[in-house]
């Protein structure tokens, strides 16, 4: 069950996943972060995104931002460590982009990675999907 405007459930194979329902798209020394379809569905319609400032250092496994639905607040966990280089202003303006397109238009931050080897700790799409079905 999802909001009328939500995307269909998916976990793209080209991303890496953190068990706290966050994804990372790694491109060399940089990465883009966001929350997974599962996370946005659990939260409901996102109405507020409170981003970190560009330049903020964030640490893998620690919250770096908040997303809120009408009913609830959710911490967003950094899948990898680094420094925020850009924030998706479109999501600040139109938070429901996170529901409509969680992996593209609904990205949250760009990060310059401080330790790219941390990606070894993340899950493949297949492992993340397996983990989700074992939680059900």
């Amino acid at each position, binding site marked *: 069950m999802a909001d009328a405007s939500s995307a269909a459930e998916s976990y793209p194979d080209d991303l890496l996943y953190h068990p706290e329902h966050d994804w990372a798209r790694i491109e060399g020394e940089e990465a883009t972060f966001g929350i997974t379809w599962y996370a946005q569905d659990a939260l409901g319609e996102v109405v507020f995104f409170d981003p970190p400032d560009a330049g903020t250092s964030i640490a893998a496994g620690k919250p770096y931002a908040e997303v809120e*639905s*009408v009913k609830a607040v959710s911490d967003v966990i950094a899948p990898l460590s680094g420094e925020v280089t850009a924030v998706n202003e479109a999501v600040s303006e139109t938070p429901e982009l996170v529901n409509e397109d969680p992996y593209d238009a609904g990205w949250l931050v760009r990060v310059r990675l401080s330790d790219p080897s941390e990606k070894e700790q993340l899950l493949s799409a297949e492992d993340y999907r397996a983990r989700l079905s074992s939680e059900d």
Partner: protein
Amino acid sequence: MSTATGLKRTPLYDEHLRAGARMVPFAGWEMPVQYEGVRQEHVAVRTAAGLFDVSHMGEVETRGPRAAAFLRHLLTNDIGKVEPGGAQYSLLCREDGGVLDDLFTYRFAPAGEDDRFLTVVNASNAESDFDWFRRQAEDFDGVEVIDRSADYAMLALQGPAALEVLARTLDSGDVPGRFHHGEATVAGRPTLLCRTGYTGEDGVELLLDPAGAPDIWRALVAAGARPAALGARDTLRLEVCYPLYGNDLSTERTPIEAGLKWACALDKDFVGAERLRAQAEQGTDELLVPFVFTGPGIPRQGCRVLSGGEEAGTVTSGTLSPCLDVGIGMAYVSARLAQPGTDLIVDVRGKERPARVSTKPLYKKGE
């Protein structure tokens, strides 16, 4: 009905699942918090018609030759001023003025010497309210208090199109006037129709035999009402500043502090009257005020309110207003800060968000 989890289910449980509801535990019940989305349901109620299952609410019947005198003693408002067929909002207080519950009482035509009333109470307080009624009734001859919670399902049909939707399903009976009730047949089922609600919109609440609830639910949905759940019920009531027990009302607060003096007949004696009269005369340290954020952010229950760097109160309800598209809430603040237009700071998880005290309701039709 009760399940292995210990949560009760309303007779509409299967309807909720069929409509795609997300179910959550609420006051001992398994209730829908949203179907397709809080915002869509909220807007449906503001612009058309929404249908809520509120069968978790409790019902207490009070009857007997002295039933009116008993309720005048127990409740802050004066049910003696209400004719049969009328309804009245009131608070139920302890001796110290602390609020035990807020509720609606419906007055019926007397049966012989017996006056008859039905009081609808919050689900979270249904058991304790009933105990309170019963214990207080021990000192009163000529009153019988009966827990009728299991005898009624309750639906709320709310929104500018609510009466239109109702008309399509109404077999017999009249639509009662505002704050009145009457018997009717809806979708073939006998129903008590009450022109009351918790959304700030026109509409009715329907009290009926639980066995008939699925039929009426389906008929009203087929007639154009959109299922709406607890999430939207909360944002709707907060936009019009109706207090929610457990958030804005508690035994630690009095109706005077909560801005509900209008529902207290201070010229009569009732449980808690002495304290409330004293507060009405001398004022209170804190008052419940509605506020809006003047910048980004969403206030939440428990956030601290600051003024001039000092602690100045606590948020008791907060959300993003779907109609105003801004953070709104209610907070108990120092009385000196209660004037509309006063600037405040709300500490939202460490971020200082500017807010301004406003007037009730926060959402007004046509603005």
